[in-house]
Structures are given as C-alpha cells and as structure tokens.
C-alpha cells in the first residue's frame, strides 16, 4: 500500500489488516478539498423518508435539491406513487432576501388541497437554515388549517453528514409513531426497519415473515404508509436492517414503548437465515419456529444447487466493497465468500468504530479497510489489489469500468433485488455477468500497445 500517495489527513482512515493493530479513524468530516463520495444532511433524510408513498415530500429550497432527488431511489410502492413527484418552493433571490415563509405556506396550501396526502414532510435545505425561515411554525399552522399532519424535517445540508440526515428523518418519523390505533395487532408481530424496497426487496422480506406466521405492522420506510407508521408502536419487535439510518428510531421506540430491537441483514444465505431465526427465537413460538425452519430449509435447498454454476467461474476472483453503511459490507463479504470470492478491499462512507472492528475481524489478512475514501485512492487500491469486481454506488461505477473491471451496484440504482434467498441468486448472476464479461478481455488489450496485442492474439488464433 506504500505505492499509493495518500493525503496525510486520510492515513488514519485506511487500515491494512494484519499490518498493525486495528485502529481506524471514522465518523469525521471529510477533509476539505477531498473528492469525497459523501453527501449531506438533506440527502440522508431525503433517502430515508422518500419511500413513504402516500406522503407529500416538499423541498423548501432552491430547485437543485429537489431536482437531484427526483425519483432516483427506485423505492417501489405497491399503491400510491406520490413520493415519486418532485415538489419544490424553487426559492429565488428575492425569497432569500425577504424570506421564503409565505411561499412555503402558499405552496403547501395548494399541494394539500390538490393531493390530500396522508401526511406531509417539509425538508429544510441549507439556505433555509441560513435565512432562518420558521418552517416549524408554518407546519403547525398548515396542520391546524388542513388537518393533514405536516412535519418539518430539519435537514439543512451543512449541519453535518448524511448520517445526521438519518437522525433528522428519525425525528420526523417519531412524530407519527404512537398516533395510531394498535388494536388487533398480533403478539407475534414486528416492524421492518431500514429496508427501502429497492427493486421490491421489502416485499420479499415481508413475504418471508408472513410465511413464518409473523405479522408485519409497518415497513419503515420501504413501500411505507403513514397510517402503518402511526400504529407501529403496537408491534412486539423492531427488526432493524440499515442500522445507520434506523437505530435512532428503534431506540426511541424502545425507550418509550419498550419494544426490543434486533439487528438484521437480508443479504446472503447466512445473514438472511440468521435474521429469520433471530426473529423466531425472540417471538418464542413453536409454530413460528417450525415455519422458519421449513422456510429456510426449502429456500436454501432450492438456492444452493443454483449457485454452483456461478461459483465455478467465480472461485478465487477478488472483490472490493465500498458501500454507504459498513454493516452491509459485512454481508457482502460473506455473500462473496459463498460464491468463492475473496474480498480484498472493504470500506464505507459512514461506518463507525464498531462496524469497522467487525469488518476487519471478518476480513482476510491484507484486506484494505477504507473509511470515506476518494476516487484516486480507491482506484489505486483497486489496481494494487488486482480486484476483479467493485461493489458500490453511482459515482464508483464509471471508475470500475474505466479500470476494466466488473461492477455491481448495491445502492440506489439497483434494478434487481439482492435481498433474501432469491436476491442471493440475483446477486450471483449479476456478479457472474459482470466479472466474466468478455468486454474486460477486450479492455485488457488496451493496457499496453493495443495494436501489437491484437495482432499477437490473432496470430495465436491462427496457430490453434
């Protein structure tokens, strides 16, 4: 790793397993001037609340914040599609000088009358925080006048990182929790927290729980509904997947309603099975446990033979994982192992000490662990570690391709579900497709002298 030029301030964010005792810096602001892959508070709250499909999501700010978050999440809804519209107060210079409160009020009156949403989330952006619009007061007034609960989301971009946006989202959600009727909820019930129904994944998970005989009260927020969230405090258990975004809400509910929390991951055979067994064990019901055993056995026995053909080609290939949260990276490493692959780089944008400690425990010697990396650093490590695959998000994709290696999106732009047992099969297919793609052989010809390399290949072809 010495051949990589690393910025002094970044050194502490990079760890090579085995080289030195584990100690990684994380949960810090990116160094100013770095080409960080991170986003802002607004982004964090927006992506978390976004999938609530029957709520109005209004962005109070200049047009960009609304335009860039318009229908980018692929969070599917089984019913209303209101969340996919882009509503903005489109602040102009004079609004910045005189304040945007009137405009926001007017916009909300028009929107609520037209769409009659179940609730409305009003996101404050950087500029709103700066000019000091009293968004909270306007929300109170609108709630009183329209009867539609209008919730401010304090998501001024500069107030921290994406993670602080998760917290703003949890605070907003907490206003809904506890306001609905919990009659008729089964004692064998859970909430699914921190799954966003990318490519229908929440449906897959919900189906498993229902097959186990467990009632799912609310899915927060994938395919989310306001009324479900209002009554989710009636559930017996909170099952949290994306811990970064949803632990705070679960903790609030634990303190207020005594609902225990289980952490889960739905990616890969091991983690998926464990999640279901953990829930069954907690609910401590014989039928549920039996159903769970049957479900896992059926699904795994169906899945494993289907994985074989992919595994054959993927054995020994090397992967790099760079995800938003670090918990997901753990599942990725296990899933890649299931496919016979080795993870050589593992990193995240927002992991904490505990996450990274577990990540390095799970990793092989020599694995590079990265916090809040930048493209230059990432590209260098990908080359040094001779990765065949990068798992990441939209900004990482073209970097992998330019280097001539495979890529798998494990963020918003996924078009196929990767969660659950069927998701594992999709994952295997996708990884297989990209890692073994013939295009990388063509790309490799580029590495040196493309023309002499081509003619050499042709000669070899002639001889055989």
């Amino acid at each position, binding site marked *: 790793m010495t051949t990589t030029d690393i910025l002094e301030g970044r050194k502490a964010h990079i760890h090579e397993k085995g080289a030195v005792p584990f100690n990684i810096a994380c949960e810090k602001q990116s160094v*100013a001037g770095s080409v960080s892959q991170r986003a802002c508070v607004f982004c964090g709250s927006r992506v978390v609340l976004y999938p609530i499909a029957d709520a109005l999501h209004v962005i109070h700010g*200049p047009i960009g*914040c*609304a*335009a860039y978050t*318009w229908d980018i999440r692929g969070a599917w809804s089984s019913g209303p599609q209101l969340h996919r519209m882009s509503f903005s107060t489109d602040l102009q210079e004079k609004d910045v000088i005189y304040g945007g409160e009137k405009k926001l009020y007017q916009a909300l009156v028009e929107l609520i009358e037209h769409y009659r949403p179940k609730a409305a989330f009003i996101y404050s952006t950087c500029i709103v925080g700066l000019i000091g619009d009293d968004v909270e007061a306007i929300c109170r007034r609108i709630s009183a006048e329209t009867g539609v609960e209008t919730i401010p989301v304090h998501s001024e971009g500069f107030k921290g990182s994406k993670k602080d946006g998760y917290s703003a989202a949890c605070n907003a959600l907490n206003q809904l929790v506890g306001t609905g009727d919990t009659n008729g909820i089964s004692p064998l019930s859970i909430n699914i927290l921190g799954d966003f129904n990318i490519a229908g994944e929440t449906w897959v998970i919900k189906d498993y729980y229902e097959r186990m005989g467990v009632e799912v009260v609310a899915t927060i927020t994938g395919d989310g509904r306001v009324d479900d969230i209002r009554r989710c405090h009636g559930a017996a258990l909170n099952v949290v997947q994306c811990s970064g975004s949803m632990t705070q809400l679960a903790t609030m509910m634990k303190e207020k309603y005594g609902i225990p929390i289980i952490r889960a991951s739905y990616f890969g055979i091991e983690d998926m099975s464990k999640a279901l067994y953990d829930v069954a064990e907690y609910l401590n019901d014989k039928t549920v446990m039996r159903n769970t055993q049957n479900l896992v056995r059926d699904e795994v026995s169906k899945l494993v033979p289907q994985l074989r053909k992919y595994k054959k080609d993927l054995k020994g290939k090397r992967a790099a994982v760079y995800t938003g949260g670090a918990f997901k990276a753990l599942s990725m490493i296990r899933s890649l192992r299931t496919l016979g692959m080795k993870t050589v780089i593992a990193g995240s944008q927002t992991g904490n000490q505990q996450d990274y400690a577990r990540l390095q425990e799970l990793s092989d010697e020599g694995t590079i662990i990265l916090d809040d990396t930048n493209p*230059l650093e990432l590209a260098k490590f990908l080359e040094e570690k001779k990765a065949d695959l990068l798992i990441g998000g939209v900004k990482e994709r073209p970097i992998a391709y330019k280097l001539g290696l495979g890529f798998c999106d494990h963020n918003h732009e996924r078009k196929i579900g990767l969660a659950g047992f069927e998701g594992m099969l999709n994952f295997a297919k996708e990884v297989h497709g990209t890692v073994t793609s013939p295009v990388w052989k063509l790309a490799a010809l*580029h590495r040196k002298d493309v023309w002499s390399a081509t003619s050499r290949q042709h000669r070899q072809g002639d001889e055989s």
Partner: protein
Amino acid sequence: MALLRHTTDDVVERQALTVNPAKTCQPIGAMYAALGINRCLPHSHGSQGCCSYHRSTLSRHYKEPAMAATSSFTEGSSVFGGQANLLQALNTIFSVYDPDVVAVHTTCLSETIGDDIPQIADAAVAKGFVPEGKCVIHCNTPSYVGSHTTGFANMTKAMVDYFSTSTSEDKIADQINIIPGWVEPADMGEIKRLVKMMSLKGITFPDTSGVLDAPLTAEYNMYPKGGATIEQLEATGDSAGTIALGPICSGPAAEALQNKCQVPQNTLPLPIGLRATDMFIQTLRKYNGGNVPAEITAERGRLVDLVSDMSQYFYGKTVALWGDPDQLVSLTQFLVDLDMRPKYIITGTPGKAFLRRIGEVLGDGVKDVIVKQGAQADMLYIHQLIKRERVDLLIGNTYGKYISRDEDIPLIRHGFPILDRIGHQYFPTAGYRGAMRLCEKILDAFLDRQDRDAPEESFELTM
C-alpha cells in the same frame, strides 16, 4: 399509469410551486463547464451534498467519472464563513490531486454567507498553497438565481476573465474562438471538425470532448486528455473573432472577451439543425476568406436529400419540447424547417429573451404555440397541456419518459440530463451530420409507431 394519475387536464395557475422541474441549479453547469478545461478539478464551495449530487448527475448522464472536490461545509463554516475550509481545500487539492487549474464555484450557502472567493484565493497564494504555474479561477453560482445553463455561462465567462490575454493589437487572422455552449462532448467534437474543415485554427472552450467521452484504457486517469489548455485559453485574446453558440450559455463569455481583449464576437444559435448550421458556416466564412470546402457542401446536400426522401412523414406532426433555452431555439427552427409543428415549448430557465427568440423562429407561419419560461414552466404544466390536446412527439430530457408512457407518445431524448439511454455523448446532433442523426431519430420514432399500429392489411415492407 399510477405514477402520473395525479396529472389532470385542467391547468391550475400556481404561484409558489415548481412540480417536476424543467431545469436544475447553477453549480452543476459550472462543474460541467470546468470539466472542459484540461487538467482542471472543479471545486464546489459549500456543503458536501451539492457536490455529491452534481457529480452523481453528471456521472449518470455522461457515464463517466465526474471529478470535483468540495469545501465540506459544517455548521461552523456557515456561521464564521468558509474561508478556512477553502484555504484547507486548496492546500489539499494541489498536494493530493495535482490539477493545473482549480475552478471554484459557489453554492447558495457560501453565496449567501458572502464568502469572497478571489480574496480567499489570494490568501491561498500568499500562504504558498497554490504551486507556481497553477491557477485558481472562480465564478458565483447561487442556486436561487438562473439555472444550470447560467451556471455554465458564468464558469465559461470566468475562463475569459482569468485567462484571456491580448499580446498585440494585431489579431491572428485565421485563429478564432469557438464557445460551443452546453452541448454534448460529441457535439463539441463535431463543431471542432467543421472549424478545421474550414481551414481555421479554432480554440474551443470549454471543450469536454475527450474528457467526458474518454476511451476505456483499463487505466484510471483523473484528468483525461481533452479540454482547453491554459495556453489555449490565454491565446483567445489574440484571435480574430469569437463565435458564441447560444446566447445564454456562451454570450457572456464572448462579450467579456470583446471588452477585455477587443476580440469581435458573433453570437449565433447553437448549430443544431440545418439553418443554424448554415449560420455557423457562414460566420466561419468571414474568417477564412469565404471558402466552403466541397465536402461540407456535400454534407449539407446529404441532409437535404434525407429530408426530401422522408418529408411526407414529417409533414404536420406536432411536437412538445422542453429543456434549455439555447437548445430549444435551434431545435424549434429545425422542426419548422422539417415541416413539423412545435406546439408546446417549455423551459424552467427564467429569462424573457427566450420568448422573443422563439417568437422570431416561429415567425407568423406557425400558430397556436404555447411557450412558457420560468418557475412554473415545469413538467407538470407541459403534461397538463398534453392532456388537453395531445401531440405526436416529445423531445426533451429523460424526465419526459413518464409523460411518454402515460400518454403513449414517443419520446426522443435530447438535452440534459439523459439518465437512461446511451450514445448521446458519442453521437453528435450538431452540424449537418448531427441533423441527419436527429432526422433518423425522429423518423424511427414515427415509422416504428406506424409499423406497430398498422392493421395487418396495411402493414407494408416499404415506407
């Protein structure tokens, strides 16, 4: 389709609201323009989110890495100002990423705080953070003014403000500046090709060809080969003339260059379509002694030939268009020349001049056209219009796909952003050859539709 069932055909006058915008904000335009300088790292002076969104959107559109750094504002920076962040950022950038130019643009946050970028950049020089021979340029791009197109214009003008130098009163007769406007890298390449064919030495800026359509080499280059170099940008002051393509995106830079270095400017429409390309070639003739090579005349002739072959399919077809003002003016002209009828023309970018320019292009012959600009000229509005009276074709960016699906009207993707198709970064729509490609796309849409909808007995082999 459930997604758009909310859209009704009654057009409700809105005062305070933009729904599904037909524009975005200034900084992304500044970032795109800055990527058209060789070895330049754009820098976003504000919160991390802005930079992240702009890079993601550019990456999605161009399918390329879009590099940019950020000042990573915190709550402290928004209270005490972003000077410390920018100083640290410049130090970091030059020591780690080693660009030749850092192009700083502001965001609504840093703009409202009132950070003085040139003063901070000077302080960075004084502290030794900016190595010898490297430069920091800047422009102001608050998100609550203009749109992405004005951001592009501001950064392009900054290139003139910072670099253009006049070394002598005598201008170089065969050297001209081309400001291509916000078009695809392929269009910039096509424009450069035409200038070269006209035997002129062109300096094109910004120039994203080679940067955002870089080849795959199995190596990662933070700074691909393309882009206008500092030397080229400096030399613009000695050119015989400037051709600014598109008054909104390119006009301000051309004007600045005229004032600063007395380089006479010609502001033209973007050379999209036949007549706009004619105007471009005619203007180039002023600088090359009046010669048009036979090959260019032949290209024009091929375009006219193609149009004549298929003119029956263009005749009278109605179109709804949305996007950037400079693009819309040239597209509208071309559609009128193809005997088609633009019906709704929408841009979120504010500016009354657009209405006048579109009016000139439409002339007296084309009636019943609704043209709207500004905050409430958005995708909801255009959809409401279409619901009232439909059109045969949609031309605009990817966001039109919902309307296309909901109303079953073919969509030709053109403009920015295109998030769900490829090719736009490689295949130009500028120039005569680009116009041929536009024709192909339009015809494909109509003829595919006709083949799909034709009853068995009238389904035919030839068309």
